[in-house]
């Protein structure tokens, strides 16, 4: 379902159509929107791809759209298309987290390359997000006691040491530990350590 899509937002319909024609030539899926508002109304954040935005637009400007998306924690990469003399505006947009900008008139290959890179970046981000979400679910499936056992195991404590620390029998720790491995889909202690580190990595 989630085939990457290039979302074009440009008030100039001729320019939007020409971009669609150009981008479709590399067999990418393209959708055009005539205004920033139309895009916000129609966009489902689950859809992957990238956004190609004109900096100057009547109504909500490209920069404002960027701010609105950031406020909603939508991280789809944005490529700004700027006219002559808007470079400063574009630089500010990039500093505010835009993926890239390209100045009109641009080389077609240049634009297509940037679009490909933006789509790749979006895919990476989504991958990472998905992994995190999966890990979060896994960790959430543990009982409090299992969590305690997990924390100590990844610190490198032996079953006996864990049993001592928690005031449990070694046998009970053995059972909890097997349960943790199973719930976390971990094949080894080192798998568990990796997952724990990943969780720490994103706080």
């Amino acid at each position, binding site marked *: 379902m989630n085939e990457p899509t290039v979302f074009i937002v440009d008030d100039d319909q001729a320019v939007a159509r*020409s971009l669609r*024609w150009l981008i479709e030539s590399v067999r990418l899926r393209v959708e055009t929107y005539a205004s920033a508002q139309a895009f916000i109304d129609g966009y489902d954040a689950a859809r992957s791809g990238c956004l190609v935005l004109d900096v100057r637009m009547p109504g909500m400007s490209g920069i404002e759209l960027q701010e609105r998306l950031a406020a909603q924690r939508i991280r789809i990469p944005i490529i700004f298309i700027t006219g*002559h003399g808007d470079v400063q505006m574009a630089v500010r947009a990039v500093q505010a987290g835009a993926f890239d900008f390209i100045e009109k008139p641009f080389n077609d290959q240049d634009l297509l390359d940037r679009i490909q890179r933006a789509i790749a970046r979006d895919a990476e981000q989504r991958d990472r997000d998905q992994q995190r979400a999966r890990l979060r679910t896994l960790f959430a499936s543990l009982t409090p006691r299992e969590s305690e056992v997990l924390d100590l195991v990844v610190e490198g404590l032996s079953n006996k040491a864990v049993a001592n620390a928690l005031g449990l029998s070694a046998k009970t720790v053995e059972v909890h530990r097997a349960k943790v491995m199973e719930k976390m889909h971990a094949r080894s202690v080192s798998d568990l350590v990796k997952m724990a580190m990943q969780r720490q990595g994103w706080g």
Partner: protein
Amino acid sequence: MLPASDMLWLALVVLGGSLTAVLIVLGVVLARLRDAERRLDERESRHESMLDRLQENEYRLRTIIESEPECVKLQAEDGTVLEINPAGLRLVDANQPADIIGRKIFSVVAPEYVDIYRENMRRVFAGEAMVYEFRAITLKNRVAWMETHAAPLRDARGNIYALLGITRDITEHKQAEEQARRHQTELARVARLSTMGEMATGIAHELNQPLSAIANFSRGCIRRLRSGGMSPVELIEPLEEVCEQAERAGDILRHVRDFVRKSEPHLKPMDVNQIVRAVVKFTEHEARQQRTLVRLNLDPLLPKVAADAIMIEQVMVNLVRNAIEAMSEANSSRREITISSRLFETDFVEIEIVDTGPGIDGSLIDQVFDQFFTTKPEGVGMGLAISRSIIESHGGTVRAESSRDGGAILRFTLTINTQQSSRRERADSIHS
């Protein structure tokens, strides 16, 4: 016959009587004389007190003038300084009155102002009271700006025998004024530039849209043709788009041209001389500042022209300013502008502006009316181009040439206002 003794007695009596009479007469005469003397004395003392009062008055006036903080001086018609107060001595850096009294005032007037100063003096001796500014170079070679209020002094018979001048140092004021003016000029230039810059940016942005659409459509076509498997019919639509966008670009350019041309003049019957006088007034300050004399040589019997007064004023202010600037930039010693009006052929009035500046380089004469042509370091090169388009929209022509003695001559014509031929037709026939 009376006895001798009687005779003697009689003689004595007669004699005595005569003596008495003589004495009486003498007494009366003496009394009269004394009276006259007394009256003379009285008159003399009265006269004396009058003289005293006169002297007192003069002394008082002198004290006022001597202690006056501004320079007060009397000048003869040839410029000789007759009298000057201590403040005046200080103003010209004189140590004693002899340094300046008896000398010509022109010895402290900057050379480039001598002519203007003479002209002003001539007008005061013709009976005019006036105020004039000039640059002075004092006896110690200090340069200062002065302002003089001058009035004619007349004797009992009404003849003007001197110029009474009250002069003050306005250097500081002048510098502040100059700074303010420079600031304003700079602001105006920046405003003009940024308006033009904005317009250019706007046009660039507008044109960029169809141009990038054309590029995108074309590139899309090329890519599809290269990768093959594309039926040519599918390219018709994007190629139609390319054509449309090219037309759109053309429309934008047409729009810009219309916009530039748009300023349609509102023609009314106008007295050209009246416009000239208004322009002289507008540029008076700059002319004075650049020590430029503006002369008028207007034909008073001209028919009215069909003109938009504001636009023609704009053109003339522009031409006069150019002349002032050209002369000041070239540091011309003689700075004069002569504006003339006259009948030209049968249907036109010609206005001519002649300056005494460096003139126009013969090889550039055909370019001066081009857009962006300028010889000024800070110029934009729109002034004469706009002037020409205004004059042409009035159905007139404008020409530039160099005068024989070096200056520049700018001439333009305006059509005489007539009922029969409307300005519109005339303008159109010239445009086409």
